[in-house]
């Protein structure tokens, strides 16, 4: 067997495996453009005979998808900016030194990373309601998400700072820069890509956040798309084509970002989890 043939066979198996794995995603897009009767046909058709593209427009208008998505964007951007401003400096210090204090700080950060949101929401909700923060529900959710996701961001960005050679910063200091100047003019620009990828990862997570928003945002006009999707799916729903159209509109922007930045996102993810 020649090597080229082996490569071809492996590639074909890989494509088949990916097709099986990604079938749920395909099924979402196909169901979304089916008619009501085609959706419940038996046997189900795996290729839409009569695609209903207008369904996107009608769901967009009837379910107010624009408003939900806007709220998701507001919440995710708020959380990411907060995390980026606070977390970058923290990651830098944790990367630059190596002593017992840094070890203790890292341990703390790693431990905070693992607290499940659905268990933390009870005290957060009661505490926020006591200090009146629940009157600003989106701010409350942004704060909660920031606290939840910042440890992950710190771990990712710390790995980036570790790869910036310390000699460059020292050279800048010798040339008369202050620590402040060296950080903003030398270290930050060099770590920019890593910080950006981590911020995008956090953004995608916050964009799909559910527990905090569901629990703390009662007013429907402030709810993000995840809560909207949840209330769309009643226990005995049969509008699956509409629900899948909603889901498709929700997830497609994220998938587009993922496909564009796939290589960077994958390397960012792996460096964070095992380092």
């Amino acid at each position, binding site marked *: 067997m020649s090597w080229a043939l082996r490569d071809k066979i492996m*590639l074909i198996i890989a494509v088949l495996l*990916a097709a099986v794995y990604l079938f749920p995603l395909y099924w979402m897009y196909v169901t979304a453009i089916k008619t009501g009767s085609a959706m419940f046909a038996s046997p189900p058709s795996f290729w839409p005979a009569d695609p209903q593209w207008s369904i996107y427009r009608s769901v967009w208008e009837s379910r107010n998808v624009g408003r939900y998505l806007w709220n998701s964007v507001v919440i995710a951007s708020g959380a990411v900016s907060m995390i980026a401003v606070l977390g970058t400096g923290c990651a830098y210090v944790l990367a630059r030194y190596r002593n017992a204090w840094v070890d203790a700080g890292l341990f703390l950060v*790693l431990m905070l990373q693992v607290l499940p949101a659905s*268990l933390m929401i009870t005290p957060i909700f009661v505490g926020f*309601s006591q200090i009146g923060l629940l009157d600003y529900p989106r701010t409350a959710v942004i704060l909660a998400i920031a*606290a939840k996701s910042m440890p992950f961001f710190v771990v990712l960005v710390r790995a980036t700072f570790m790869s910036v050679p310390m000699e460059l910063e020292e050279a800048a200091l010798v040339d008369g820069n202050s620590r402040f100047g060296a950080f903003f003019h030398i270290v930050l620009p060099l770590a920019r890509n890593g910080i950006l990828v981590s911020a995008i990862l956090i953004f995608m997570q916050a964009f*799909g956040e559910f527990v905090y928003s*569901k629990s703390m945002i009662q007013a429907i006009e402030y709810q993000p798309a995840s809560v909207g999707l949840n209330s769309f799916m009643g226990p005995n729903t049969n509008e699956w084509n509409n629900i899948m159209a909603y889901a498709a509109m929700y*997830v497609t922007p994220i998938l587009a970002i993922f496909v564009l930045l796939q290589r960077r996102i994958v390397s960012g993810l792996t460096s964070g989890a*095992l380092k």
Partner: protein
Amino acid sequence: MKRLLLSVSDGRGFDIALVSVPLIFLFTMAGLPLVYNIVMSFQEVDMFSLGTIFRPFVGLKNYTTLFSMPETWPILKNTALFVIASIAGQFIIGFALALFFWTNFPGASWMRGLFLVSWVMPGLVVGAIWNWILSGDFGVLNYLLRESGLITGHIFWRSDPDFSLWAVVIANIWLGISFNMILLSVGLSTIPQDLYEAAELDGANVIQRFFTITLPMMRSTIGAIISLGLIFTLQQFDLFAAITAGGPNNSSNVAQYWAWDLSFRQYDFAQGATISVIMIVFVMIASVVYVRSTRHEVRG
């Protein structure tokens, strides 16, 4: 004042300022709630005392009530089942895929990255899709199982108490495969290739090489991945909310969903806090294992 400013812009103060603000934020937003959670689990909390801080302490009453509830043990059993089945499924399939892509053919790393799509999808979307795939009458999974002759009738995945937990497990395995695979791939790529060449010269076959080189060399990676899997499965909430909502009759309920359900559906915040405390202890144990297994890398 001037010295302080100088220190912040050009000395130790700079580092302390950078690290203390986020740590104070994390302490108030994650540390305090943790403490508050423990306090609440020893208090009597209802809708009327929600706004006050000084609530009557009731000792261990919340804990004794919790363990005398008829649903407690079945739900804890479900949690254990959910965690074990999810991790086993994710790990085995993920390891198989990682080994497959490790054989290194053109396009392997790109195809492998494609699997990570599930990782970035919102949990509610994944739940909605699986809810539809697992639907009893018109679900495509039932159709495929029937056509392949594995089942004869319909399985009502979401409403049959015997299957509802497994419906969520299936969705969770799908969600977790990608993450297991990618981390195991990273682990595999760190094994020096000459070990295999030496073993091959000594006449070890594929299976012997797997058990004597691959598995031992991957020990710390596998430890980290299993404990991370435990942490992530205990965080899984969205799939329950989207697929079964813990029903029917708690047959698919797990502790992390139940805690939320008690607090926000039944407004029993004290019981919600009590379960949270118990579960957080478990998560903490898992995370200590995780941190220990990545320790040498944390230290650099």
